[in-house]
């Protein structure tokens, strides 16, 4: 395992620092909530990047874990269990179980079948949330209290809440990075590059993929926990297939299989979305062509762009190429 490099630390500081900087400069704490969304989507996208970029598994149902995490958090909070130390293990276990079951079935297939079956299995959970009155059905579920950390912590103070989201996001991003750079991560890349050879070398290909799938699901579940806290709301829309498409788009926009890609992609996506929505409600009509252009002509994404502009400073790729 290699140690985290200076560029990674610069990137991390940049990711959590830009929000407060913008809020201070504009003297508008509301801006923090935009950057909270950015960090949450960065975590979700980097968990998808772990299986997509490093593992070569195109999951078209990754947003389902955002939903699972958000609903688990919401149900706990509304039943009076607001303590974070209780919510985190529950969210991790529940989303890991969901990912294990989905992965167990989906990993019997590869290629297009894998894309379609992850989509279909995510739809099952989406409809569960949508048609169950205990979960608030189509209208979603208002969450009565944000997670409680310790006495005196005010989750409704913009700065304290931002600090909570930022620290959690950094821990999770660091965790994904750690997994990607570990021996396990290199085995995962080996299964992507040549499953047959990896198998011949004695790696348990399906087992490696399944573990990565479960880790990614659990991390994305925690992103869902943050999202539930941030919006104080859980809706079936979090698990919608369009959301899964957005997560894929964020990873591609940023650069597949790069460490900085999901973070840069999420930042551009959330900020661009925020400003375009205020220009026109039809903003996807601009985002769609952007996505198509990136896929057609600019496959290395933003991470590739940053790398080309700033040398190797900001965008260290873990394993070059796809």
């Amino acid at each position, binding site marked *: 395992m290699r140690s985290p490099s200076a560029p990674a630390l610069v990137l991390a500081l940049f990711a959590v620092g830009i929000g407060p900087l913008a809020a201070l400069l504009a003297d508008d704490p509301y801006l923090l909530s935009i950057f909270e969304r950015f960090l949450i989507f960065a975590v979700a996208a980097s968990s998808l990047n772990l299986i997509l970029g490093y593992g070569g598994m195109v999951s078209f149902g990754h947003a389902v874990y955002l939903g699972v995490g958000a609903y688990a958090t919401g149900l706990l909070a509304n039943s009076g269990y607001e303590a974070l130390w209780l919510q985190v293990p529950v969210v991790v276990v529940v989303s890991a179980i969901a990912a294990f079951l989905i992965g167990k079935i989906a990993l019997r297939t590869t290629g297009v079948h894998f894309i379609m079956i992850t*989509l*279909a299995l995510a739809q099952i959970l989406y409809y569960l949330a949508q048609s169950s009155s205990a979960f608030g059905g189509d209208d979603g579920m208002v969450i009565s209290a944000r997670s409680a950390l310790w006495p005196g912590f005010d989750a409704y103070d913009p700065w304290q809440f931002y600090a909570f989201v930022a620290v959690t996001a950094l821990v999770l991003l660091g965790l994904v990075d750690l997994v990607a750079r570990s021996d396990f991560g290199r085995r995962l890349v080996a299964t992507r590059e040549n499953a047959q050879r990896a198998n011949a070398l004695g790696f348990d290909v399906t087992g490696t993929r399944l573990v990565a799938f479960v880790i990614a699901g659990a991390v994305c579940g925690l992103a869902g926990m943050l999202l539930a806290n941030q919006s104080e709301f859980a809706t079936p829309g979090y698990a919608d297939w369009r959301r899964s498409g957005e997560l894929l788009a964020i990873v591609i926009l940023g650069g597949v299989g790069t460490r900085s890609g999901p973070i840069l992609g999420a930042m551009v996506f959330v900020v661009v979305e925020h400003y375009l929505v205020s220009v026109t409600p*039809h903003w996807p009509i601009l985002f769609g062509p*952007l996505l198509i252009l990136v896929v057609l002509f600019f496959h290395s994404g933003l991470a590739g762009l940053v790398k080309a502009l700033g040398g190797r400073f900001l965008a260290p790729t873990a394993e070059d190429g796809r």
Partner: protein
Amino acid sequence: MTALILEQLLNGLQLGVLLFLIAAGLTLIFGVMDFINLSHGSLFMLGAYFAVLFQGLTGSFFLAVTLAGLGVCVVGLIFELLLVRRLYHRSHLDHVLVTYGLILVANESVAILWGATPIFSGLPESLSTLVALPFGISYPVYRLLVIGVGIVVAAVLFWLVKYTRIGMRVRAGATNRAVVSVMGVNISLLFTLVFGFGAFLAGLAGALAGPLLSVQPGMGETVLILSFVVVVIGGLGSIKGALLAAIIVGLIDTMGRAFLRDFLSAFLSARVASEAGPALASMLVYILMALILFFRPEGLLPMQKRS
């Protein structure tokens, strides 16, 4: 009760026929070009909008449906020539992303042009009546017509693929693209034709479905996901499989929504049944797909593929 069950069976058949029209295009495009087209649902949506537009212009429902199918075919050909053909040699992930981008563009364009609220798709008087069938069923004429058109189109499609030269090339292309190309078949023309034909079928399905669904942005997406379920259950690339799976999915989805609640209330309390029934009904086809893929990952009637 018999009448009710038969009526729902017909409804299921009608949904299955519509799903087949969409799934046939998807599975042909996949089988021949190895291309995943998420925007196939958008072509379906365009078909519904075009039908409403042309009906306003021409005043004839049947002419409008035909023109809508042809219009969507033209749109599909333009897509293929400008964009899709650059993607055939790319990964499936790229297909998914580009066509996802196209969905966003299509939905917003439609919302800008026609508004985000559902528009009314009128039926002529002669088609909005009920017809008396055996067993005391009175059934909407229009739904029968949809079933009939679907069966005719399916028959024509099978004839085209099985007995014509172009169909032979399509089958050959699906089995081994490289060899077909080496044998001197103009493969890029074949690809364009297949894509255009798939678009025509989707547009036709959309035009026919307009009066049955609400015509609004995003209406193609539920149908698209169901059609993917059909294609995957049937076996990717297999038209026969798509037909079989479309009927199965259409029937199971319709029967589940109609009877699952009553069926469950025989075993469970009324409250639990009315809660679980609709939830389970909307999940049923996806559960079926997961089960089929678990036991037969290649689908029910897989295509013989050599690459």
